[in-house]
């Protein structure tokens, strides 16, 4: 029936009909691709940001900038490993809190291979907070490792590759500044956007008490924490500041003492920017499609003009207005949906092709992500197409209904 309609209208304007359908197909393609790119970008950004950890906060102890209870400004505040336990006890509603001490230039030796890298002493919960997932066959640090000050080490995937090449490092011995450690796990490769002391792939991690035993350092470089409910992050950070303030004596309102990166907060901003990008992309897509819709309306106006006599005859024979407007609306809708289906097929094919392209090691390509056609995108496109199709038929149909039969049938 669709073909019949098409053939009938196109007898006079085949070229026009084809161009119009192509315009709608192009518009649909543009809309779908733009939305799919937005979706893919969002997913890849979300993954990349989740690389550092989801809804965590990172604290850097610094110096006081305000005098407090008789003490001058400019005192460095350096919490200790034991303070982590204090925070854990005093602040409720935390998924976990971990200390972090970094040894920046550490030699890591295996056999005749030596590299220099970062080694961090961390609490066991750090692996969960900071999204350190072991490659199967290995594991992250556990509480016993920490309690017994075991000399075990968890490697970032790049470090592991630099030292062991393609060999499996798990179970092998690694000298950390000449002290032998056993490799217990390697981190799986992950996308990571956020970082505060280099990429996780480049570091190695040991239990914080083992770190203390080897290096004699007790002062925390960072505190990482996560709340059970991200909504409470700000309140919990204030509580942590209060706990440390009462112990070390500083004004809890002194923001320079505890530098804080609240990823819940920055995540909101990021999501808003992403939403902005998506809206921008869909507006461009919808506009492109609207141009196609105007093409359909145009062709339907021409069809109405061409069929004025036919419409007049039908009116003379007693056709009610829906007999006149119905076919016009239906035909406009048919053109639009035909183009839409064509656009959908092309978009699906293109997206499939693009997903087959290797992104390689290019960070930019990885960040751009894979365009993704989600059901919500399909629903949006179908909705937009439907509305444009109906409008493209509605206005010409209104003109058809306003044809004056007496005028039309007047003897030529």
């Amino acid at each position, binding site marked *: 029936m669709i073909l019949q309609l098409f053939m*009938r209208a196109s007898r006079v304007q085949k070229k026009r009909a084809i161009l119009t359908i192509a315009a709608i197909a192009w518009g649909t393609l543009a809309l779908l691709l733009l939305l799919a790119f937005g979706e893919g970008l969002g997913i890849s950004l979300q993954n990349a940001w989740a690389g550092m950890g989801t809804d965590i906060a990172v604290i850097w102890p610094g110096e006081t900038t305000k005098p407090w209870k008789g003490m001058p400004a400019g005192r460095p505040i350096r919490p200790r490993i034991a303070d982590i336990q204090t925070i854990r006890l005093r602040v409720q509603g935390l998924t976990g809190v971990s200390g972090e001490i970094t040894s920046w230039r550490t030699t890591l030796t295996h056999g005749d291979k030596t590299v220099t890298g970062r080694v961090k002493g961390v609490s066991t919960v750090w692996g969960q907070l900071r999204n350190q997932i072991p490659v199967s066959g290995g594991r992250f640090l556990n509480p016993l490792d920490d309690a017994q000050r075991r000399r075990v080490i968890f490697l970032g995937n790049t470090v592991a590759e630099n030292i062991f090449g393609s060999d499996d490092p798990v179970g092998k011995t690694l000298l950390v500044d000449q002290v032998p450690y056993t490799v217990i796990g390697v981190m799986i490769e992950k996308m990571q956007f956020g970082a505060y002391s280099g990429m996780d792939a480049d570091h190695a991690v040991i239990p914080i008490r083992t770190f203390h035993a080897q290096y004699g350092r007790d002062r925390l470089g960072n505190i990482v924490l996560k709340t059970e409910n991200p909504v409470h992050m700000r309140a919990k950070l204030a509580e942590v500041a209060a706990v440390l303030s009462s112990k070390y004596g500083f004004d809890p309102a002194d923001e320079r003492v505890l530098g804080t990166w609240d990823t819940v907060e920055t995540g909101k901003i990021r999501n808003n920017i992403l939403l902005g990008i998506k809206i921008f992309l869909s507006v461009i897509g919808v506009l492109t499609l609207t141009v196609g819709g105007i093409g359909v309306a145009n062709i339907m106006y021409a069809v109405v003009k061409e069929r004025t*006599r036919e419409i007049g005859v039908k009116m*003379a*024979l*007693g056709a*009610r207005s829906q007999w006149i407007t119905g076919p016009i609306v239906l035909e406009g809708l048919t053109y639009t949906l035909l183009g839409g289906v064509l656009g959908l097929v092309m978009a699906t094919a293109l997206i499939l092709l693009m997903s087959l392209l290797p992104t390689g090691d290019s960070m930019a390509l990885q960040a751009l992500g894979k365009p993704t056609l989600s059901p919500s995108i399909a629903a949006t496109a179908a909705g937009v197409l439907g509305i444009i199709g109906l409008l493209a038929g509605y206005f010409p149909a209104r003109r058809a209904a306003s044809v004056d*039969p*007496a005028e039309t049938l007047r*003897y030529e």
Partner: protein
Amino acid sequence: MKSDNPTQTNGAVIHMDGIRKTYDTGKIKVEALKGVNLDVKDGEFVAIIGPSGSGKSTLMNLIGCLDTPTGGTYRLSGELVAGLRKEQLAAIRNRRVGFVFQNFNLLPQITSYENVEMPLLFGGVSRRKRKQRVEELLERVGLGERMHHKPTELSGGQMQRVAVARALAMNPDILLADEPTGNLDSSSGGDIMELFQELWEGGRTMLVITHDAALAKRAPRQVEIRDGLVVRDNTNGSPDLMSDSIIQSTD
């Protein structure tokens, strides 16, 4: 006070009183009808004659509810047409009136069958009844063999017979024909006249606009229109006057 009491129309199926029609083309107003009074009784055969531009076709459009008058009252079977909604006028055109045009006005893309079927489709007649009715009508006008031909494959006379069949589809009381033989050769025109004669004898009210003296004479009543007014209404015909007006109108 408005009343739809049929007695007011003296039993006329068409009752027109002081009908005016003005076309407003923006710059100039054209008064096509200047106050026409016309009563047509059920089963009458009326020829409407008059020169070009006299307002005959306008009158025909008003009678057929294709258009509405700008003044005067028009009752169709006692029902006041002014004030009817668009859809109600469409229903009247569908059920009460059949149109036959000079240039046939058949839809060229579809077959004779589908052309005749169209009013039945608009009237909501079931598929089975439509088929029965269309076949019966096309047989009656002698085109049973040409049912599935398109209008372009038919002669002028055949096309006009399809158009008559179409006009009769919903079995209307009134048949309106505007120069039905105007585009036909004399033999085909004669066939159509025969057909009209039969239809009239079958009890239908017939109104025919014509320049054709022979067809006009077949009608027992001739109404002559000139400059938007009825100037003559001869119930039994006056051949001299008739031929006079025909000569004037065909020049």
